[in-house]
């Protein structure tokens, strides 16, 4: 995908903004233009939270989401508000445990054990990085290596090992494809 | 010492003579306070090129223009805010704020308490004549109970602000009060206030004969300034730390002299040291 729109949706505190920032970073390194926006409400502890990227090869005219090409869902909360924004055939990645109820529709759903994988690695908070790994594994959005590099550059050293393992697990899940519907 | 500085002090050296006679009413105590301020400046040897006067709106605010210095006549109630910016940007200047009871305590009350709290090196001279003189004699936060003004036509029932108690409670490093008739004592108080490193608040009991005095049958200016003297209780000069809030909400029988003097950290110096530390940490 050259020009696309992607949303990370979840609840406050899930690290959605970090995921979006790392992905944006990676895309910019790949030469794309990115506009990043987020819900601007006090949602650091629970509540609907989202981080949106508008990605273009050249200049970005309108910087906000109009039709999503990719939707990453880490919680059930953003599902209802985000589904109507999906472009036909959009890629939807959802955490099977926390965002298991995804309505039927013309989209490519990947319901994956994102948070369970993070828990298995020892910290549920790494779910967001698992999700990034899935994006890399699916290979449609961003190159694997660029994403790994920005993770290395962009997360605190004491969490680096956990995050690299989470990323690797996500890549694995993405490459496997997961149960589509 | 007083006599010596009085002999060498020529007030005309500090005035914009072309603006005289000034606009104040006959007998207005603000003129006396202005003299005391300039006398203090003279005694401290401050170069008028390095003197910045920031004043607000009202009769008090207009007095700044007569001083031959860098003078800023700003908005109503906000001289302390302007002065805060000026003093932080230009610590080399000696910044003195001239304000009035309405300017400083009503519309500018918030700025006063935070200027006291911040303790930036400023001197605030508040001329308290108990009334909004320039707008025609309305009640101010220091209008004594039962006084008549154009907005308290049957006598004021509001309690008054004890500005010095307020300033001290808010953390001003230096607080003092004086009456105009004690001109040398007022000069000494202002001199010490300006010399103090930190926020200095000086309340000057001034008289508004034309509007306030007349409406309240307080006599002419000589009577008014004498009455002020007799209704104040001089704290012996230089003695600090008395209980200045002994009976709040009254306009008379207040103490004069230095009421508080503490060496809290001065904000400007503290900020500059803090910023220098940040820069040094980044270089290493």
């Amino acid at each position, binding site marked *: 995908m050259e020009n696309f729109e992607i949303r990370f949706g979840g609840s406050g505190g899930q690290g959605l903004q970090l995921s979006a920032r790392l992905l944006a970073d990676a895309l910019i390194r790949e030469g794309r233009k990115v506009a990043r926006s987020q819900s601007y409400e006090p949602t650091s502890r629970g509540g609907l939270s989202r981080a949106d990227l508008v990605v273009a090869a050249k200049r970005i*005219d309108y910087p906000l989401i109009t039709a999503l090409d990719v939707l990453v869902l880490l919680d059930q909360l953003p599902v209802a508000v985000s589904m109507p924004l999906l472009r036909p055939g959009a890629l939807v990645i959802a955490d099977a445990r926390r965002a298991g109820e995804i309505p039927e529709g013309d989209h490519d759903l990947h319901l994956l054990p994102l948070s369970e994988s993070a828990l298995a690695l020892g910290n549920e908070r790494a779910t967001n990085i698992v999700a990034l790994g899935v994006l890399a594994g699916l290979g449609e959005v961003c190159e694997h290596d660029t994403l790994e590099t920005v993770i290395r550059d962009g997360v605190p050293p004491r969490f680096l090992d956990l995050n690299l393992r989470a990323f690797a697990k996500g890549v694995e899940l993405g490459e496997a494809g997961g149960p589509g519907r | 010492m007083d006599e010596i500085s009085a002999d060498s002090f020529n007030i005309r050296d500090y005035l914009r003579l072309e603006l005289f006679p000034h606009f104040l009413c006959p007998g207005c105590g603000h003129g006396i306070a202005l003299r005391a301020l300039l006398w203090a400046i003279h005694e401290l040897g401050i170069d008028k090129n390095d003197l910045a006067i920031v004043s607000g709106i009202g009769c008090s605010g207009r007095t700044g223009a007569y001083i031959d210095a860098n003078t800023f006549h700003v908005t109503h109630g906000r001289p302390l805010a302007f002065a805060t910016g000026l003093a932080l*940007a230009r610590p080399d200047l000696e910044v003195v704020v001239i304000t009035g009871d309405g300017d400083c305590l009503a519309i500018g009350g918030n700025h006063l308490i935070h200027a006291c709290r911040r303790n930036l090196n400023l001197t605030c001279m508040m001329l308290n004549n108990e009334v909004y003189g320039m707008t025609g004699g309305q009640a101010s936060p220091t209008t004594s109970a039962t006084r008549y003004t154009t907005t308290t036509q049957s006598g004021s029932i509001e309690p008054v602000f004890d500005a010095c108690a307020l300033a001290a409670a808010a953390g001003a490093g230096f607080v003092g009060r004086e009456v105009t008739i004690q001109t040398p004592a007022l000069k000494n108080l202002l001199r010490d206030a300006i010399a103090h490193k930190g926020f200095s608040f000086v309340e000057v009991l001034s008289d508004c004969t034309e509007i306030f005095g007349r409406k309240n049958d307080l006599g002419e200016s000589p009577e008014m300034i004498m009455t002020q003297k007799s209704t104040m209780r001089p704290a012996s000069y230089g003695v600090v730390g008395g209980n200045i809030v002994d009976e709040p909400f009254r306009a008379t029988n207040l103490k004069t002299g230095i009421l508080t003097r503490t060496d809290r950290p001065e904000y400007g110096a503290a*900020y500059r040291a803090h910023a220098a530390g940040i820069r040094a940490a980044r270089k290493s």
Partner: protein
Amino acid sequence: MPSQSTARDLQGNQACALGAVAAGCRFYAGYPITPSSEIAETMSVEMPRAGGVFVQMEDEIASLGAVLGASMGGAKAMTATSGPGFSLKQEHIGYGAGAEIPCVIVNVMRGGPSTGLPTRPSQGDIMQSRWGTHGDHSVIVLAPASVPEIFSETIRAFALSERLRLPVIVLYDEVIGHLVETVEIPAPGTVEVADRKWATGAAESFQPYAVTDDLVPPMARPGDGYRTHTTGLTHLESGFPTQEPECVERITRRISGKLVHHRELIESYEAAGCEDAEIVVCAIGISARAARRAVNAARAQGIKAGLFRPITLWPFPESAFKSATASARTIIVAELNAGQLVLEIERLCGGARQVESIARVDGEPIEPAEIEAKIRELSSHG
């Protein structure tokens, strides 16, 4: 120290703060308010690093008061706020205009009136930014529409403010303020830092508000020996108040004349696809971003559509607008308010063109599709 520019992903508000630093701003006073607080937060880090001063004041009024005080002391100074805070600042915007004190005021627009919609975008301060303070006064309002433009327009705001001795307002909506885009940050020291004209010559004959060829009098710095008087009262060339009708008129005309005299320096705009356009969309900020996509989409459909985007919102780039819309039959004004910019456009068109309004007041940005539909509806092909 990098000698070349560096690309950084910045939030709009961060870009504003960094633009100010690059422009030479060394004094920031502010008060927290959503959605502008990131500017203060960034400045609280940047000012001490740059050898400047950051101070969080007790309120919005004091913030601009302190900025004016610092500017009178010679510092380049800025404050930032949003809706309710901008209302409170109006008193001092007037002082800055009347006393001709350089200063930059950023207003990140949010929904109003009153507390309104603290976190939702709006463009409801288009008129307030021009006419918010009482009395005739001159201000410049710049309306960037992207994060890189916030950076560059903040720099330009300082340059204009310093050169013309007046308050310059940087006005953008919450969406642009919180958007993250890539900004090319010029290498340190490569941004031209504009400085005001300082007083020179004999102090005795110096007139702080003298009439000069460019209508901008040199400013005296405290400590340099000029000992001038500054007042919010209408004042003579000497700085002292006057009520003489002819003096008052002379002074008032000179101050407002600065904007006319320096129009070329001040005015800035973007006109895209207007040469042959029969429909021109006029918008600022996020609405202009939507309009750009809509115009592109319309062009792709064969509709002759164009975009006119004032970057200098006030004074409105009148002649540029007139030439950009020379071929246009219809002007669409898209804005996040009940219809403010459209009033100016109607005035400029003088009934000669059809002026249509897209005025959205639900706290959501206008979407490209909304404008595109309007273009199609008004198009002769539609």
